[in-house]
Structures are given as C-alpha cells and as structure tokens.
C-alpha cells in the first residue's frame, strides 16, 4: 500500500479513532509501518529462561518489576536549613489509566513526614461548637465511610512554565504535582454534626501533626459540602507521605488545603490567616495586588505521551494520550491539536469520567516524519475551557506562578524528538 487514506479529523495527521477500529475489523496490515518479518528482525523464539525455572513465591507486599523500577517519583536534594521540605513528582509519562499508584502519588511536605503512631494521634474538633470533641483512630474506623475518586494537584504545579525556559522539561518535571486516587473516609459533616457547629462559625482551621503544624482555613459551606477525612487511599491506609493516619481531603481545591496528618479542626468566625494562605499560595498580579484564597484548581489537561524527552522512532501511527481534570466538575471533552492549535479534534475519553478526577483521553495520530506541535485542551462540565499560556500571562503575568492551568505544547521535530515549547 503506497498510500493510506486516513480519516483525517484535524491538521497534521490527527485521524479518527474509527480508522483504527476498521483496521482491527478488516485486518488491513499493521498499525505502525513495520515491514520487517520476525525472522529477519532477529527475534528469538527459543523458550526463555524464566519459562524453565520456577520464580520466587508470593510476597507480603508487592513491588513493581525490576524492569520498570526506574519509573519513580523525582524529588529534590535534602536541605539542611529546611529539613523535610520539598516535593516529589509523579512519573506521568509512564502511567496509564486514571489512578495513580500510592507509591507514585506526588508529595509536598513542609517539615518532612512524621512517623505517627496512630494510637497516640488525636483528632480534635473545637472552637465554635456546642461540644468540643476528640476522636481516636480506632474509633474513626468504625464510622460509616464513603469512597470517591479525586485528583489532587499542588497549587505550584506547572508553575515553571509561566516563567519560560524548561526546554528539556518532561511531563513529570513540569506537571508531576498532580495525582489521582480513590479516597475513602468519613464525611467531615458527620463529625461536625456530632460536635454541633454554632451558627456564627463561618470558617474552620485545619492543622496537621507534622513538625510545621501546617494549617489552612476552609469556608464552612465547602467543609459541609464534600470535604472528607480520608483514612484510605486506593484501598489501603493512607501512606505516611499522604498523611497517615488521616488527612483532610478537599475535592477540587489546591492541594495544600487538604491538610495531612490532620489533628485539629477549629471552627472560627474568620479565616485564621495562616502563613500558607497569606505569604504562600497567593497570586500576585501585574498591578502587585494579590489574589488570596484561590481555591478551585483550573480546568486542565496534558498530553503524557508523546511528551518531553520522548522520541518517536519512525513515522507511523501513534496513540496520543494524556489526562484532563477540573476542580469545578467533570471533564466533558478534550480536544487535541497536532499543528500548534490551528486545528483541533475531539479525543476519546478512555475509562473513568468522574467529577474532580483525572480523566484519560486518547486519539490516534499519523506522524509523517515532519515537525509538529502537540497540544490538548480540556472543557469541563461547567463549560470552562483550558486557556492558552498567552491568555494566563495577559490576565495575571508571571510574577507569581501558582495555579497555572495553561495549555502545554510539545514540539516534535523531524528526528522524532519531543520537547517543551512555547507557541
């Protein structure tokens, strides 16, 4: 076949997923333009050694294959003057589906990970309540729980993009401060009911049991609406890096507000004005005024493959895939462009399409060996569309870089090398 006529849906090679289905149905040759026969390619069909010797038996706690153990989080070097501070980033380019494995969920700590003995941990509810209460871990396990799949994203995720540079950036290094898990726990409203919130309480202050006693304030309406005390993550107790024995989970909002190692909830009239809601996580604008309490994370998406530092080995059909999410609802649609945003086509949603959760999208792309710029943009259930980088820069500049949800552009050159680019 000298020429395949693809069912083109947008410029520079984006094709209909129906085309791939029809290949499957009618058996028209390979998807990639592989013409070398197996024997000629030197493929060895001898029975491999692992099929001749029994392997090790069952284990107490699983570990990934040693061949994929390099799919790891990346994190900064220890800092003597800021012990335990910093973050680790999820290897988004190596993951599929919507759920982040617990060991690869991103982390951000302000004074390290406390080693908490749950039998010595308290959860206090006090302040403007009829009856201050303390709960212990074992008792909390007896409460009725709910399970929800939610993304969590650090307010600082993707921030470096607004400043420019980072041509060598990867999906992980630029955007790895987002992850998604099934969180199981107790609706905060149940415990607040038990303590009896007084009418004058308009906020609550949540504090962790880490060395920084990290605190954040949350408006009472949100707290009662969908905030939970998460005890389990993807079915197992939340890991120490995620807040064991318990964390607050505030769906859709900037990650820092989902206070880990939760030990106190205090009902207050006003926001407590903690360091991490004044000096940090506020957005300074062109005119030097600053947004305070930017809570919901923006409508956002990201192509994870192909992405920065990957390379395409030969022209042919590639499955472009990525994740989309919104702090304000579910993902309604994701569009993909292969020509730097001139033309767009709808990607297919693969798997879960849940409220405030990572949503996997995919679309086939016929790379012709020329240059291309791959982009994705998400539209959420509220009709919010992910903005361009220029739109964000025009709105608020790059003086501060929290809450960046702009479109990511990956350039593909004629050698098939993929890199971060600004268009």
């Amino acid at each position, binding site marked *: 076949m000298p020429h395949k006529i693809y069912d083109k849906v947008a410029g520079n090679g984006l094709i209909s997923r129906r085309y791939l289905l029809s290949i499957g149905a009618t058996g028209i040759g390979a998807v990639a333009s592989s013409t070398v026969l197996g024997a000629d390619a030197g493929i060895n069909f001898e029975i491999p050694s692992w099929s001749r010797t029994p392997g090790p038996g069952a284990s107490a706690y699983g570990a990934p294959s040693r061949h994929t153990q390099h799919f790891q989080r990346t994190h900064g070097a220890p800092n003597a003057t*800021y012990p335990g501070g910093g973050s680790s980033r999820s290897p988004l380019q190596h993951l599929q589906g919507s759920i982040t494995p617990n060991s690869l969920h991103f982390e951000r700590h302000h004074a390290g990970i406390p080693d908490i003995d749950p039998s010595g941990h308290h959860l206090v509810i006090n302040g403007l309540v009829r*009856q201050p209460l303390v709960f212990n871990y074992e008792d909390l396990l007896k409460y009725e729980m709910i399970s929800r799949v939610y993304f969590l994203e650090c307010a600082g995720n993707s921030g470096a993009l607004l400043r420019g540079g980072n041509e060598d950036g990867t999906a992980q290094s630029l955007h790895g401060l987002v992850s998604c898990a099934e969180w199981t726990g107790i609706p905060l409203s149940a415990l607040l009911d038990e303590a009896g919130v007084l009418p004058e309480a308009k906020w609550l202050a949540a504090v962790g049991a880490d060395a920084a*006693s990290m605190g954040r304030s949350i408006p009472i309406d949100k707290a009662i609406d969908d905030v939970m005390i998460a005890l389990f993550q993807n079915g197992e107790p939340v890991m120490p890096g995620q807040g064991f024995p318990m964390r607050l989970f505030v769906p859709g909002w900037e990650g820092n507000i989902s206070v880990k190692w939760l030990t106190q909830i205090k009902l207050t009239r006003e926001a407590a004005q903690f360091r991490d809601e004044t*000096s940090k996580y506020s957005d*300074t604008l062109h005119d030097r*005024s600053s947004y305070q*309490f930017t809570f*919901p994370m923006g409508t956002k998406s990201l192509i994870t493959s192909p992405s920065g530092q990957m390379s395409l080995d030969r022209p042919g059909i590639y499955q472009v895939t990525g994740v989309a999410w*919104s702090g304000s609802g579910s993902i309604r649609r994701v569009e993909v462009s292969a020509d730097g945003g001139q033309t767009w086509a709808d990607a297919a949603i693969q798997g879960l399409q849940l409220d405030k959760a990572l949503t996997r999208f995919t679309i086939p792309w016929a790379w012709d060996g020329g240059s291309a710029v791959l982009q994705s943009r998400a539209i959420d259930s509220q009709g919010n569309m992910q903005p361009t980088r220029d739109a964000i820069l025009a709105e608020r500049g790059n003086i501060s870089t929290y809450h960046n949800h702009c479109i990511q552009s990956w350039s593909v050159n004629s050698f098939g090398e993929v890199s971060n680019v600004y268009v």
Partner: protein
Amino acid sequence: MYKEVVIIFFAIFVALSTLVVNSQERVRLGTPITEADLEGFDLIAEPSGTGFPPGGGTARQGKEVYDINCAVCHGADGEGTSGNTIIVGGDMQSEGPPLRTVGSYWPYASTVFDFIRRAMPATAPKSLTNEQAYQVTAYVLFMNEIIGEDTELNADTLIAIEMPNANGFIDRSHIHSN
C-alpha cells in the same frame, strides 16, 4: 390464611422499625473535652486575638533569641540565606517576583507570631517559649521597621498592628467553583 397475613404484617413492621432505628443511630464516638484541655495543644493565633497566650516581649529582648535560633537561616539582619528565608526588605513596586517578606507582603502581624510559634525554628519547631515567640516576633517586626525596638508586643498590641501590604489582597474565598 389470616394467621399468615398477620405474620407477614408483623414481619414488615419489625423490618421497618429496624430501619427507622438504624437511620437515627449513627456512630458517635467523639469524647467530650473542654477548651481548657487544649491549652498547649491548640496553637492557632487568629487576627482577632483569639488564641494568643498571655505574656509579651520587645524586639530588644528578641534579638538574642533571634541570633541564637533564627540567624543561621534568616541572616543576621533578616536578609536570608536563600529565596525562602528572606524576611526583611523587598517591596511591591520593583520588577519581577516580589520577595514576599514580612514587611513588604504579609497582610497580618498575627501570622508572624502564629507561624513562629508553630513552625519555627525549622530544625526544632515549637521549642520556643511563648515569651520567646513574642520577643522574636517583635524583633522581626522591628527589623521590618513596623514597630520600635522597645514596643511591648502582646496579644493586644500585636493584633492592632496595620501591616504595610494589608490592603494588597483580593479575597477570592467566595469562589468555590469556576
């Protein structure tokens, strides 16, 4: 027949009453405590003055505490040793990202005391006494030219301080969804 109907009705009655009881009997396992129990545990110091401990201190007293506990990271005069540790200087006019120092950026003086008491010094948080936390707070505010060297800082005087960038913020806490 009559007997069977009675039994069925009785069974339904029992099932329904169990449901009603279950819907009212929620797990309630919190142990009642008093605010007094939380003295030393509840470290939240609010802009309203709620949560501030008794006592106070001056910048003159705070210098020694600062030199011993804070200067190694924040510098002898608050000039810092890295971006995140600069606590004096800066402004909201110059080009580029503001330094977000206490004097140029922080909207509330209460936050300085609250943060020092809960999270500083970074290698030994919560090791300062309440007196020392007041003294260091006073010294940080003095270095930022917000109070005098001998101003007595306590719960009342601290919350009365108007920070230079207090009006520099746009409250977006009413936006819960876009």
